[in-house]
């Protein structure tokens, strides 16, 4: 049993990798779409088994309290998105936006992206983690550009340029961390392993750590989509296939944040190093306020929810910047809830945009009359993302706000203002899309509602009742984060 447990992290990487290779040569998109679901389910099963038997950290891969829940979240959303994707691409084929040849490429890249994201989460090595983030970026760039419209190519190009500059800067930060570690730990693999770095971080040269963190914050901050480094994010979300928008918002942004938080743990362990809190608070607050204001004038429905992702990433970065057990707890909860809610919203938005044959908000209307079930899903999703009770995001936002009031009351003012501005914008747009005069196509939806409502149910449950072990677990991780 223990020997088997040691192979699980490798399995989480190898299953999607094998899937990518098989899909690259397999003809017949209908079979591939089903196999895509099956491969994602297998990966999820492998990840779930980590809950019972957790392997010891190896030289390359590790599973600890922090990354295990992100791995589960990643594989879970990867699985539900593959179900949504199967029904989504059927429609894209019918209207001829995608051809079977492109679909083969799409499915191979989907699994390749899952592999890369799991690699970034599982790696016990700062270099390997970087390779994971970089590979995930390439595959998403290609997926964003898959429609080959001028707008899609522009979005992919912008994403490529900004994303590569970001990961290049993160690489420089990674090299600097190795420099700092090498003089204490010695050359070789151990000086890049998380398990050794955290224990010895107190002895590292503090100025070098500070410099490294600035590069890492700007570098991985680009991947998180923090303002003013967010320019790629709305375009990439709006122009790519919707399943990819769901994965970008729900998973890839979290991975950038995960990388940054790991490095923050190093700085927290070194008393002489600068406190990363104020930097993260500033970037988080500015992203929140900027995105909240930008929400009002959006005309494209996917772009609207992309800005909402920037807003929520701002809140999460702010929470981790505040630090301390309560704010960290809220940040972890918010990461999970945002991921589930935002991907659910994109599932419903994907079907809405297909039925109405447009992404323009002013051409979508009266969804509650034409498609009541989709309208229900979208409404619940938007209410949840806007922070209405009883959903999970209300819980986590409440915790962030109350801990801010307790510790830095004056910071709570812009925070609450940002939340309210965003709430107003979302309510306005929701009113137009769901309740106004019916506009746009009225063809019946051939949607799979399962992933949408499964996510929403989890978010609702998360807001009312969190199981005891999960709370204890979040509390433990919150303490680790410092």
């Amino acid at each position, binding site marked *: 049993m223990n020997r088997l447990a040691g192979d699980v992290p490798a399995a989480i990487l190898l299953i999607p990798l094998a899937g990518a290779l098989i899909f690259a040569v397999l003809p017949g998109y209908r079979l591939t779409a089903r196999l895509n679901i099956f491969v994602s389910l297998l990966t999820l099963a492998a990840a779930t088994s980590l809950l019972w038997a957790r392997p010891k950290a190896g030289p390359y891969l590790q599973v600890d309290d922090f990354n295990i829940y992100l791995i589960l979240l990643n594989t879970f959303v990867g699985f539900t998105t593959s179900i949504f994707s199967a029904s989504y691409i059927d429609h894209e084929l019918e209207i001829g936006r995608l051809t079977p040849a492109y679909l083969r490429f799409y499915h191979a890249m989907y699994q390749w992206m899952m592999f890369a994201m799991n690699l970034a989460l599982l790696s016990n090595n700062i270099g390997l983690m970087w390779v994971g983030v970089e590979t995930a970026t390439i595959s998403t760039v290609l997926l964003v550009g898959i429609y080959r419209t001028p707008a899609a190519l522009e979005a992919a190009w912008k994403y490529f340029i900004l994303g590569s500059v970001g990961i290049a800067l993160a690489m420089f930060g990674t090299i600097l961390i190795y*420099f700092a570690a090498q003089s204490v730990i010695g050359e070789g693999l151990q000086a890049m392993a998380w398990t050794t770095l955290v224990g010895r971080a107190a002895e590292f040269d503090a100025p070098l750590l500070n410099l490294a963190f600035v590069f890492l914050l700007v570098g991985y901050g680009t991947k998180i989509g923090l303002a003013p480094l967010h320019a790629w994010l709305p375009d990439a979300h709006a122009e790519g296939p919707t399943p990819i928008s769901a994965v970008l918002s729900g998973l890839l942004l979290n991975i950038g944040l995960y990388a940054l938080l790991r490095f923050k743990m190093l700085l927290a362990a070194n008393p002489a190093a600068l406190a990363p809190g104020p930097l993260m608070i500033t970037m988080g607050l500015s992203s929140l306020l900027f995105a909240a204001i930008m929400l009002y004038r959006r005309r494209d429905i996917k772009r609207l929810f992309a800005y909402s992702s920037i807003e929520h990433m701002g809140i999460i970065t702010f929470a981790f910047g505040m630090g301390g057990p309560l704010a960290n707890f809220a940040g972890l909860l918010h990461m999970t809830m945002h991921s589930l809610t935002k991907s659910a919203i994109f599932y419903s938005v994907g079907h809405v945009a297909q039925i109405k044959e447009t992404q323009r908000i002013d051409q979508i209307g009266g969804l509650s009359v034409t498609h009541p079930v989709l309208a229900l899903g979208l409404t619940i999703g938007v209410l949840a993302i806007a922070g209405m009770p009883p959903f999970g995001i209300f819980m986590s936002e409440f915790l962030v706000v109350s801990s801010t009031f307790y510790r830095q009351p004056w910071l709570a003012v812009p925070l609450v203002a940002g939340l309210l501005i965003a709430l107003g914008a979302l309510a306005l747009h929701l009113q137009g899309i769901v309740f106004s005069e019916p506009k746009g196509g009225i063809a019946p939806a051939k949607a799979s509602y399962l992933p949408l409502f499964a996510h929403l149910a989890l978010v609702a449950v998360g807001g009312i009742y969190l199981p005891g072990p999960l709370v204890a677990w979040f509390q433990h991780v919150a303490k680790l984060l410092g």
Partner: protein
Amino acid sequence: MPVMHGLAYDVAHVLAGGMLLVSFVLLYQRRMFAVMNSFALHAIVLALAVVWQAYVQAAPHLYITAAIALLFKGIAIPVALHRIVVRLEIHREVETVIGVGSTMLGGIGLVALSILVVLPVTASSAAFAREDLALALSVVLLGLLMMITRRNAITQVVGFMSVENGLILAATGAKGMPFVVEISVAFSILIAFVVFGMFFFRIRERFDSLDVHYLGTFRGGQE
């Protein structure tokens, strides 16, 4: 270490300094083919610098990184870009956003900045490593400057590749750093994908130019 300290330092510095010099050369090129030739030179100097590190550190795996730099970035990519320019009939002149003179001045400022930033904080590291790091950061920043001040997609990719060369220089200068080969392979895949993407998506067909400025106009309909 098989070689005397003094000589090891001097040669490494000459090569890293040479890369910085070629980075400046890249900044003032006005013709597309000259940009590619200068980039090939950049990659060749990088390959030499990495070979020297491999020899001094007695780290044979770095020879792989050097070979990638020479064969892939020194030969294959410039040839591929050359063909793209000819096939897609792209303007052979580089369009700049800011004049060459001010770009060069900005570049000098960035070199001064990176020396001021890196040298004080690495006081405890070995002299060799810290100066190498300062030079590498200068190469990275000059590459970013090139990406910002050039409109054309091909010159932006060249700028990105010179950023990457700077990172490889920094990584090989960090003694005993693992995964340098893997990282250089990962970077090469990234670049190969993009160059392949240019062919594949035939950006020329749709935009009549690889000028990124054209791409920007399409957003008018979106936002």
